[in-house]
């Protein structure tokens, strides 16, 4: 009997069950999907807990504090504790301090990163010699798309023409990207079906 249960059909049964339960949602909401959905949510939240506890709380706070005696870690730890200030009505507002710190530093990093890491190189790559149809179209495409986002004037007159060239470019690009992505998504589905039919049920080799 033990050999029977070491057969892939049984060892892979939980995996196959949850795979099918997720697919069943395509038909409609049902108890199997609901079960899988809640298991999935519970596991992934637990996964995130374990991951963050080990990689952040343990490795970035506890170990530096107890083994390396890096007392500076107490500052962010205190900020972290302030996240719970909301539970003490009198100092509830203090939970905004850690939020303000994270949002402020994100804003600082992003301010630079967007201007330095995005605008500069993207503009740089657009300064091309107009010696081929491709380059001409690239420059027209970039500029007209950019102008499409112009907020200060209604899209009428010459600005309207440029903006409609821009939106036409946008539609070409979006249609193309949509069509292009189908293959990658279908590849994933093929992977799952191969699991079910070949690895689990051995219906094909």
């Amino acid at each position, binding site marked *: 009997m033990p050999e029977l249960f070491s057969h892939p059909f049984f060892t892979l049964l939980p*995996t196959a069950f949850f795979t099918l339960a*997720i697919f069943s949602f395509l038909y409609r909401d049902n108890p199997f999907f*609901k*079960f*899988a959905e809640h298991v999935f949510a*519970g*596991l992934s*939240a*637990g996964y995130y807990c*374990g*991951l*963050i*506890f080990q990689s952040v*709380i343990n490795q*970035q*706070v506890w170990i530096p504090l107890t083994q390396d005696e890096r007392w500076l*870690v107490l500052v*962010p730890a205190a*900020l*972290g504790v302030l*996240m719970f200030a909301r539970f003490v009505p009198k100092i509830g*507002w203090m939970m905004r*301090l*850690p*939020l*303000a710190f*994270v*949002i*402020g*530093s994100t*804003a*600082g990093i*992003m301010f630079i990163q967007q201007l330095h890491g*995005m605008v500069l190189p*993207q503009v740089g790559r657009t300064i091309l010699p107009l010696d081929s149809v*491709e380059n001409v*179209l*690239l420059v027209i*495409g*970039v*500029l007209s*798309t*950019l102008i499409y*986002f112009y907020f200060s004037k209604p899209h009428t007159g010459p600005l309207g023409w440029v903006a409609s060239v821009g939106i036409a*470019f946008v*539609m*070409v*690009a979006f*249609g193309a*990207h*949509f*069509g*292009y992505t*189908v293959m990658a*998504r*279908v590849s*994933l*589905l093929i992977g*799952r079906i191969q*699991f079910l039919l070949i690895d689990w049920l051995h219906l094909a080799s």
Partner: protein
Amino acid sequence: MKSRLPVIVAFLAGVLMIVAFFGRGAVVDRVAEEALAWQTIVAGFALLLGVGSIVRVHWHRLATGHPDRIYSLVLLICLTVMGGSGVLFGIGSGTLFDSLFERIQAPMMSTMFSVLAFFIASAAYRAFRARNVLSAILLLTAVIVMLGRIPMGQYIYHALPDWANWIMMVPSVAVQRGIIIGAALGAASMALRVILGIERTYLGQGG
């Protein structure tokens, strides 16, 4: 104090990161690095709030006899087992944490991902109608690129794959660039508004 202090903290944190970018030197680098590590640590503490939120919602369902309470119980058990084993026994390979991830969670992740194959089809069928010139352009390029990607496209018209590649390399790149530049300006402006304390909706102020 209550409304000014958070704004000042956000301002200082933002300016610090900007100064660190242009400055050279061990101190500057160190301060910026430290600030980033602090972000992670604060986020780590916030995790407990997240878990608290899940537990409260589902505990409430159990307590009030919500029709889906049995599923809430399942969720809480999974959360406890997975999270508890990760916290107590570690997350390395060979642990319960790891095998639950490999056997149950990861396959569900790829299955959910593969559901996109169905959704991309239903979205295309429903949305790609030639209602006007613009939607006709969208539809046409999508179909050309789809045909250009499969072997049969070559038999329908030999240059289809080249057309598909050309569309991806020229107009598509141009639009991506235009959107990226515009969005970067918008993001930088948003960031500046946050640093200057003009945009404070995230603090529940100035709405």
